């Protein structure tokens, strides 16, 4: 059923009612409940259903196959241990995405610390030699720009709420449409558009602040 609402000039006049999806009643919820009850086969089905998506998101961020696979395993281990606490307030996939992105943040943070420790252990001369080696120069040139952009984006994404971060990643990285996002979240399409717009505004604002801080 569609309802008419008061609108601003130019705004779409017809909006769908804000119906919340009841995740507790979805077919996937049965699978989750079985896994929560300790059914290993149900957990296996969950893993097999989402492993490719999870791996693809992690690989997109890390661009390292081995690390991505390790993190993907950790994500599912974390899901296994916290599945009992999953309360169906969001869809399983949104919850899985949250854990995945948080694990990536965690990994990048640890990697940064490791890099700092490693660099502090190297002498200045060793460091220069490594930076100027042909392999490092070639590899660095190819990856530096992308890594720099990635780090910048991850910083910006850390400035928006978890919900906004998930919406942006699902829209931009997973390529979900506004309609699909509405289906997953149970919100209507206009609400999704507004949320995405606000999230993008926050990203722009955060970028401005970050650039000013660097300058």
């Amino acid at each position, binding site marked *: 059923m569609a309802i008419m609402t008061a609108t601003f000039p130019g705004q779409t006049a017809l909006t769908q009612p804000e119906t919340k999806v009841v995740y507790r009643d979805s077919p996937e919820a049965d699978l989750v409940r079985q896994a929560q009850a300790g059914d290993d086969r149900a957990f296996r089905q969950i893993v097999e259903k989402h*492993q490719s998506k999870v791996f693809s998101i992690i690989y997109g961020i890390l661009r390292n196959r081995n690390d991505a696979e390790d993190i993907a395993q950790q994500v599912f*281990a974390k899901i296994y241990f916290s599945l009992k606490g999953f309360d169906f307030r969001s869809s399983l996939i949104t919850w899985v995405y949250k854990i995945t992105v948080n694990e990536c943040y965690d990994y990048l943070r640890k990697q940064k610390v490791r890099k700092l420790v490693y660099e502090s252990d190297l002498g200045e001369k060793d460091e220069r030699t490594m930076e100027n080696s042909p392999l490092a120069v070639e590899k660095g040139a190819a990856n530096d720009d992308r890594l720099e952009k990635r780090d910048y984006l991850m910083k910006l994404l850390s400035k928006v709420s978890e919900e906004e971060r998930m919406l942006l990643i699902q829209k931009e990285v997973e390529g979900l449409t506004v309609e699909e996002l509405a289906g997953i979240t149970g919100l209507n399409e206009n609400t999704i558009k507004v949320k*995405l717009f606000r999230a993008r505004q926050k990203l722009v604002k955060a*970028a401005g602040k970050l650039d000013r801080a660097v300058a």
Partner: protein
Amino acid sequence: MDQYLQDRMEAYLAGDLAGQELKEFEARMERSSDDAAEIAAMLETHSLFDSIRVSPEETPVLAPGFYARVNQLIEEEKKVPIWEVFLQPFMLRRLAFAALMWMFVLGSATLMTDTTTKTNTELADLILSEQPPANYHVRMGSDIDQNRAAMLAVMMKPGE
């Protein structure tokens, strides 16, 4: 920002706007320099997502046996010694809080059941009555102050 622009922002960024709608969008955008600047900035942040976006062809295929490896990791984590749980940061905070609470409870209990005052009173009475306790070998005289000093010296002697 113009509501028309807001409503079509996702389609514009995704390159899905075409024909008259795209023309209208661009015309409205040019009418406001603030809107144009904001949209340009949004396009810039939108392009940053390229750095983490991979096409299905680019993504390597997971090696077979992924679930088995996940399962192995779970089993390993299940074996983590119980004491390691206490080293987790959140656990340390809880332990510190619990220790403080225990100290508070024990301190309160000690104060409430303290018998020192009573003992001190008994000792003072003994000293004042010039009767040294049987387990203290103190030579007592007629001077009460001297007796008290001697008594305290004996009481504070290490090993007594």
